[in-house]
């Protein structure tokens, strides 16, 4: 149902807290309604009362997700101008474009919570909000485009599918759209790697090298182990998150092992083997020191990605200002679309 867009532009009263709800002494009724809605698997919508911490968690998570889409354009855009066939070039351009689109859907979802996109971009640019660490790894060869599609998008989809049922309506709806559009991302990556794996020995080696470099960082995308994950428990209770980090990671490993075999490529983990008893693949220990190090800003591309993003934003400022100035000058004369 299009209960429509009950949101005001940022800066005005961004979300309507019902009268009295700001008064923390008197929120019990609202809180009970919120808890009941979450318990009943109903969606929370923008104008509903929600606990401040729920709102803050969502803003943080959705913004981080949006930032990841936008920063994530860079490693792949790095290969658009060098794509080795026109077919691959078209696919890659469409994919990078989708990522911009997905960033937009997600910023819109975040904006329903009373923050503006400008605010969120400021936080990204100043390093106060994070994006997925995976994008701080470099794309060194063409095969990396395939590995990102297969492994990075594969991991992202594993994470995102449950988010389609997230308790916050706008986020869940954005994820439905994103998941639908992203199904081609993973497949094109797999197909790309398959062509390389079955190609010349040099191409095969290129594919194997990419998988070797991207496998472990992809596993890290699910976040720290459950017992070290600071936000997990509360997010699960709020049904923002539906499965634990380790659960999703295991699901991803189980999916990838046979896919790698079909590709004719190996995964760089000597401990990887089927565990009959658990009904899952066992895998080796993850180097969490690397994870935290990259997260802290010491990855191979942290500085480069953020600098590039800031630069794009700053260089675009005069364009955004010009369009705003033009709109202000002509706000009376021009009409928009007529109802059709």
């Amino acid at each position, binding site marked *: 149902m299009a209960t429509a867009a009950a949101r005001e532009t940022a800066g005005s009263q961004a979300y309507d807290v019902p009268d009295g709800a700001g008064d923390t002494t008197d929120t019990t009724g609202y809180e009970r309604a919120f808890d009941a809605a979450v318990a009943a698997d109903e969606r929370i919508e923008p104008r*509903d009362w929600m606990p401040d911490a729920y709102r803050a968690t969502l803003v943080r998570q959705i913004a981080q997700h949006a930032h990841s889409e936008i920063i994530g354009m860079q490693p792949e855009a790095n290969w658009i101008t060098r794509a080795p066939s026109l077919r691959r070039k078209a696919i890659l351009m469409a994919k990078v474009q989708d990522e911009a689109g997905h960033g*937009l859907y997600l910023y819109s979802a975040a904006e329903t919570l009373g923050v503006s996109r400008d605010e969120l971009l400021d936080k990204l640019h100043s390093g106060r909000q994070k994006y997925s660490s995976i994008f701080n790894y470099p794309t060194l060869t063409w095969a990396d485009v395939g590995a990102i599609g297969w492994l990075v998008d594969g991991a992202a989809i594993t994470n995102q599918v449950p988010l389609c049922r997230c308790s916050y309506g706008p986020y869940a709806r954005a994820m439905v759209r994103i998941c639908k559009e992203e199904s081609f991302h993973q497949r094109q990556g797999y197909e790309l790697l398959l062509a390389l794996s079955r190609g010349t020995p040099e191409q095969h080696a290129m594919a194997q090298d990419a998988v070797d470099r991207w496998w472990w960082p992809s596993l890290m995308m699910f976040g720290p182990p459950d017992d070290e994950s600071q936000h997990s428990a509360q997010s699960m209770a709020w049904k923002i998150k539906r499965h634990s980090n380790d659960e999703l990671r295991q699901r991803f490993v189980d999916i990838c092992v046979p896919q790698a075999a079909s590709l004719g490529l190996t995964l760089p983990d000597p401990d990887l083997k089927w565990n009959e008893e658990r009904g899952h693949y066992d895998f080796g220990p993850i180097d969490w020191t690397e994870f935290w190090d990259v997260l802290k800003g010491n990855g191979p591309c942290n500085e480069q990605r953020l600098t590039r993003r800031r630069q794009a934003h700053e260089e675009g400022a005069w364009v955004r200002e010009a369009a705003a100035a033009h709109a202000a000058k002509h706000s009376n004369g021009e009409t928009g679309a007529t109802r059709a």
Partner: protein
Amino acid sequence: MTHTDWPLWEVFVRSRRGLSHTHAGSLHAPDAELALRNARDLYTRRGEGVSIWVVPSSSITASSPDEKDPFFEPAADKPYRHPTFYEIPEGVQHL
């Protein structure tokens, strides 16, 4: 740097002729013309639409969740508005 955050627009897309426009999402644009074009690029790039409306988000007046009960509950107890309320003898057709 000055902030020139463009206003927010709500986008409604008619997916095919015969259906009504449905809320698709939102976007930023400096004016209505660009909002329409941005909407075309963003929300119909996979052929999802044949017509688009854009509305400044600030122009939408929405019912408040606080008034949910007075607004919507009174409609729930008027079953006589629905055809299933009425008993018709078996065999009567075209009713």
